[in-house]
């Protein structure tokens, strides 16, 4: 047997100049995990500061910088690249039976652009930081001191990395599917990644030009967003959310894509409503471009526009609901086993349902006036992004970890950590729904005494969460020190990625695979390795 992709070719240089999608995926994985750690540390600091009103461990100015960095790092350095660039890069070509993505060098370029963007972001952090919030609203962002210019430039650069990943995946899915894999024989993961890539390509350039305009405004006072010069600051919000609302679907769609893989596998059943799930991904991508105005219900947008955006926002619930019901129908009468990936998938279902439904509260005009810019929004956002995307990311990470590194992790500790994260998450953020509905504004450094018990509750939850992630870091790291003993297909799953060795050889498959059946055929016996090689 030839060596696997991790060991051949050897040497640091072979990794730095690799064009292998698997290695690039692994490099992305460790990079986004590092970003997640950094953003997580900022999150813990925020929660500690909020233990009691007034000054605890940092000044108000520092607090503004810390929550901005938490948001900017989590959004631009972690969650946007998280699933597509790490797991997607690794798994997508394997699932399609391809040897690589369509443009391997562009893929490597995307990684280095990501690294460059991350370096700019770190440079911005240490040279005065940013206190605008991750949304960079004008006119504050064009007038405040600090490194707003450097940070927006970092995000501009990161955008190219995202665009290149998107272009690569669309071309890969169109042109590199194995013989016999028609569009409706693709795993739903590929559909989700495809829908994500469409948004990455269509939305990201708009944030690019918007951020350039902020830089221009800061350097030249061009006037477009400055009301004193005849510009319009609300125009910035339109530009910003024209990207950033679709961007939350860049974040959630790949999560949904993972859930569509994990649930049938651990329910031992064919997915229910394959085409409905596939089309609903595309529908979400489409609708995502038409709802940005719901961020501006109280910004002085016209009532007519508000009503239209509110209606369109409700439309998102339909394809999302289609997915959730199909996943539950898949589990119905399935033979469910609760290994770590499935635990996270079920967490996703529960938390995403809460996150999604509270989104409807915010999409409704009357309630949004009350809830806008409160902790209710913070809680909703974290339920969808952390309860949704991060849970799905962890599900996928545990699902494909044996494939990526050829080693099993401790199932026992994985379950402990999953339980801690689930409980810790709910303690942290359910309390914030209550805080928000009682009027606690977001981004405030201090608060009224009556809010303290719930803030303490939330902070204790963040410690449980932190402990859960600490345990995960330990057992995943420990697994890497074990001998490579993972079987090719530890979960008895059907995707093509499970038909090659764990970890896969350098060019993915010993023999080019061809596809003769549907993607979730759990009813017939597993294909034997002899059948694969035939």
């Amino acid at each position, binding site marked *: 047997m030839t060596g696997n992709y991790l060991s051949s070719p050897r040497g640091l240089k072979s990794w730095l100049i690799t064009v292998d999608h698997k290695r690039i995926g692994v490099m992305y994985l460790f990079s986004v995990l590092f970003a997640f750690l950094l953003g997580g540390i900022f999150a813990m600091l925020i929660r500690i500061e909020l233990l009691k009103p007034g000054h605890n461990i940092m000044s108000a100015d520092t607090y503004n910088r810390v929550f901005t960095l938490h948001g900017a790092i989590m959004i631009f350095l972690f969650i946007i690249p998280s699933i597509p660039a790490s797991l997607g890069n690794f798994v997508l070509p394997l699932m399609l039976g*391809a*040897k*690589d*993505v*369509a*443009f*391997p060098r*562009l893929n490597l370029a995307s990684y280095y652009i990501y690294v460059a963007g991350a370096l700019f972001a770190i440079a911005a952090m240490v040279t005065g930081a940013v206190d605008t919030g991750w949304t960079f609203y004008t006119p504050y962002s064009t007038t405040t001191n600090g490194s707003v210019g450097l940070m927006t430039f970092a995000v501009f650069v990161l955008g190219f990395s995202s*665009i290149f990943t*998107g*272009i*690569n995946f*669309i*071309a*890969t899915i*169109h*042109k*590199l599917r194995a013989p016999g894999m028609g569009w409706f024989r693709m795993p739903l993961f590929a559909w989700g990644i495809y829908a994500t890539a469409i948004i990455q*390509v*269509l*939305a*990201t*350039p*708009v944030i*690019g*030009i*918007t951020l350039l*305009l902020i830089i*221009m*405004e800061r350097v*030249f*006072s*061009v*006037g*477009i967003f400055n009301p004193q*010069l*005849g*510009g*319009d600051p609300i*125009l910035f919000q339109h*530009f910003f959310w024209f990207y950033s609302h679709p961007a939350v679907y860049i974040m959630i769609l790949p999560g949904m894509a993972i859930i569509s893989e994990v649930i049938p596998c651990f329910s031992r059943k064919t997915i229910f409503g394959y085409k409905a799930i596939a089309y609903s991904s595309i529908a979400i991508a489409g609708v995502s471009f038409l709802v940005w105005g719901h961020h501006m219900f109280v910004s002085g947008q016209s009532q007519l526009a508000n009503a239209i955006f509110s209606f369109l926002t409700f439309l998102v619930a339909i394809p999302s609901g289609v997915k959730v019901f199909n996943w539950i129908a898949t589990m119905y009468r399935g033979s469910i086993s609760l290994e770590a990936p499935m635990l996270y998938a079920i967490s996703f279902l529960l938390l995403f349902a809460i996150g999604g439904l509270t989104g409807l509260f915010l999409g409704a005009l009357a309630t949004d006036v009350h809830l806008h810019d409160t902790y209710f929004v913070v809680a909703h956002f974290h339920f969808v992004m952390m309860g949704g995307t991060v849970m799905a990311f962890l599900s996928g990470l545990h699902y494909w970890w044996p494939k990526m590194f050829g080693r099993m992790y401790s199932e026992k500790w994985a379950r402990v950590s999953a339980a801690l994260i689930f409980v810790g998450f709910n303690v942290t953020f359910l309390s914030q729904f209550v805080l928000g509905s009682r009027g606690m504004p977001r981004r405030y450094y201090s608060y009224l005494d009556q809010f303290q018990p719930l803030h303490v509750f939330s902070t204790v939850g963040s410690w449980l969460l932190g402990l859960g992630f600490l345990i995960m870091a330990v057992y995943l790291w420990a697994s890497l020190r074990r001998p490579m003993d993972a079987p090719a297909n530890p979960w008895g799953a059907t995707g093509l990625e499970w038909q090659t060795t764990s970890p896969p050889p350098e*060019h993915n498959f010993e023999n080019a695979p061809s596809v003769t059946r549907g993607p979730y055929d759990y009813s017939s016996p597993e294909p034997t390795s002899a059948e694969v090689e035939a």
Partner: protein
Amino acid sequence: MSTAATPHGEFLQHHFTTAEQQADAGKIGMWLFLVTEVLLFGGLFVGFAIMQSLHREAFVAAHHQLDRVLGFINTVVLLTSSYTMVMAVHSARTDRRKRVVVYLLLTLICAGVFLGIKYVEYSHKFHEGLLPGRYYSHKGDSVPGQFMFFSFYFMMTGLHGVHILGGMAVILWVLRRAVRGDFSHAYYTPVDLVGLYWHLVDLIWIYLFPLLYLIK
């Protein structure tokens, strides 16, 4: 069709099975990239439209400062370069290797002329104090607020100019490969893709010219 047997199998990357598959993937990638370019400029066009509707008089007054004749000459230059680019692609496809080199060179020269004329225009504007934003110092304006027009003029033509420079760089790259004799009817994707990009850069100018030079 097995491309390994053709003389140009050397350009087939390992993860593709056929040359057509590789060429199609390249085209999909380039078209998607062009879409991102349209959206990038789209932001500026939308911003221009909104600011122009808010400050119509100032924009109309300001655009009289631009030199229509130079703008028109540049439009002709770029259209010509689009023609030479198409001919370069066509020559590559029909195995006329020397012509590929000639047409690419002509395209490059047109791009250079365009930038040269742009340089003349820019230095004239600098001299008059017709600069973006806070650096605007033109004297004797009858309508206030003309700086905003020049903010957009410089951002839009500047971004376009950067794209021209990028285009010249990639044209130089395919020119070098054309001189080396890489291209034939079996393999001319790079010329094709650079051509697509160049047409988009021209197309954006086709919109910029009337928008900035000919508004009413």
